[in-house]
């Protein structure tokens, strides 16, 4: 190719390239639209409605630290690239969101874009909050502006290094993975189901933990149209189980009233909340209205299970652990576990959960079983009263091998048929996790 022909071709190519670059620059720095053009009048009822939406959305779980001013931020979230910290969302004008208009607030909550077109990290679950209704966003804004005390707590910068800390590529991620629309009611379903779908997909952001994520750390489905939705996922050393109709790893054996009871009191005959769900229960689900809990239960019970993933449905087999003392781990089970969980594996419902048929004892992923044995459970605080019966931490008392053996035992007793646990998996989690605090942690919103 002659020099002149090359120059001509380059000139022709430069035009679309520049155009594309310009378009990209506009796209990643643009401030998306918001339906709110003016701020609306605020009364006490709207503030209180907003407080309830904040409970549904569990804002406090990340934006507050125990013993600190509510919503002043600070929770550290580790990512493979570095740590990010939840920000101050009190109405302080300098450090918080006091200078936000309703439209600014809306863009941050539903689209992940802060004023100045700065993209938030999707650690903020805006792909779920995108479903929030205009009314709920308006109420939430009223609560944060008038129901929350301002705090001058400075935000902690992220420790993600340049160039990975550039935020504009998140705009492209949003274009691919974040929905652009609020929840649209399905006319084929009744009002209860639609309310449940709205809470689960939107403010409740259940999928943040319970939906498996793809390569770009995107939730593989954001509603019931995708079968990975709420199909169970491994996150932060815990296995968040399926919330679909899987009899082993999901809610297949739970009735609607049992789901309501679990979210309202933290326990039912199948399970007691533990792991990350303790925080979701302590700060959010127990405060939900009974109607809303019934709606959630109705919606979750409509999500079909997948026998290919879940395996053969569990059936109880009556065996006493005391009759199998020759099996590795059985002695440890009898002396350390059976007091609460029973020689028959049935626990003491509804105070001590059964291990017979428990998700953690049936799931392929063994992280939750190992993690709770090493580190115990946090205090469940239901209706202001800390739970008397807490899973203790065994990390100081049992070796990796002993924990592997006792879990392998429990995962193969009473009809449980899950793979044995390897001591190396215990060692790995031991290194990366800390024992649960024994103090009741209550995050206040006011």
């Amino acid at each position, binding site marked *: 190719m002659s020099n002149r022909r090359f120059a001509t071709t380059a000139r022709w190519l430069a035009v679309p390239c520049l155009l594309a670059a310009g378009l990209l620059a506009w796209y990643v720095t643009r401030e998306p639209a918001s339906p709110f053009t003016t701020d609306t009048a605020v009364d006490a009822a709207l503030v209180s409605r907003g407080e309830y939406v904040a409970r549904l959305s569990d804002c406090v779980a990340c934006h507050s630290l125990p013993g600190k001013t509510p919503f002043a931020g600070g929770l550290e979230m580790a990512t493979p690239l570095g740590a990010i910290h939840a920000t101050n969302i009190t109405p302080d004008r300098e450090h918080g969101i006091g200078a936000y208009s309703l439209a600014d607030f809306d863009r941050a909550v539903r689209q992940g874009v802060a004023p100045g077109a700065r993209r938030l990290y999707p650690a903020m679950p805006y792909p779920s909050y995108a479903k929030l209704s205009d009314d709920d966003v308006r109420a939430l804004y009223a609560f944060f502006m008038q129901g929350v005390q301002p705090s001058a707590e400075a935000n902690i910068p992220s420790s993600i290094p340049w160039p990975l800390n550039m935020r504009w590529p998140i705009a492209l991620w949003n274009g691919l993975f974040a929905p652009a629309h609020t929840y649209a009611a399905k006319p084929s379903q009744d009002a209860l189901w639609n309310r449940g779908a709205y809470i689960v997909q939107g403010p409740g952001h259940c999928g943040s933990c319970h939906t498996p994520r793809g390569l770009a750390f995107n939730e593989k489905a954001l509603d019931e149209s995708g079968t990975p939705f709420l199909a169970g996922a491994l996150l932060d050393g815990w296995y968040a189980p399926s919330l679909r109709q899987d009899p082993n790893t999901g809610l297949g054996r739970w009735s609607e009233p049992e789901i309501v009871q679990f979210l309202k009191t933290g326990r039912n005959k199948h399970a007691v909340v533990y792991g990350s769900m303790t925080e979701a229960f302590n700060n959010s689900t127990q405060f939900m209205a009974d109607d809303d809990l019934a709606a959630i239960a109705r919606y979750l019970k409509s999500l079909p299970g997948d026998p290919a993933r879940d395996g053969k449905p569990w059936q109880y087999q009556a065996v006493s652990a*005391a009759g199998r*003392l020759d099996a590795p781990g059985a*002695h*440890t089970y*009898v*002396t*350390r576990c*059976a*007091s*609460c969980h029973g*020689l028959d594996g049935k626990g*003491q419902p509804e*105070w*001590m959960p059964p291990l017979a048929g428990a998700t953690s004892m049936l799931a392929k992923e063994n992280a939750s079983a190992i993690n709770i044995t090493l580190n115990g459970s946090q205090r469940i605080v239901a209706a202001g009263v800390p739970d*008397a*019966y*807490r899973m*203790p931490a065994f990390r100081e*008392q049992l070796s990796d091998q002993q924990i592997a053996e006792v879990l392998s035992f429990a995962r193969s007793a009473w009809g449980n048929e899950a793979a044995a646990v390897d001591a190396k998996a215990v060692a790995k989690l031991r290194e990366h996790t800390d024992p649960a605090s024994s103090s009741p942690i209550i995050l206040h919103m006011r």
Partner: protein
Amino acid sequence: MELRINQKTYQVEAEADTPLLWVIRDDLGMTGTKYGCGLAQCGACSVLVDGNVVRACVTPVAGVVGREITTIEAIEEDAIGKRVVAAWVEHQVAQCGYCQSGQVMAATALLKHTPKPSDAQIEAAMVNLCRCGTYNAIHAAVHELAEGGKA
């Protein structure tokens, strides 16, 4: 609710989730069973329920209605329990004694399930804590019982 403790029937008024230990000690005045950690870790509160050792501090009382509870007060009415206590005396196990009612319960339950336990089984079953460090005496007593010794 109605509880069967040491072959006697007691009527107790308690919330369903009250720990069995509170009922035994505070409501019924049987203070031989001790409160240690409150977390099922130390074993001082051990009692037998249907012959199995359980930690009364983490046992909701409603869960043991209709079951046979045995506390240290009546352990010598059980043939194996009687042998265990005799071995404890023989070996002069107790120092301060606070944990010993639980230790006796653990040993009794072990021997009920496994009359001739191996060393490993004894190690695995006798996990109650003792601040005085009487572990050597405890193990000596249980070993002798395991071998069917005179105690």
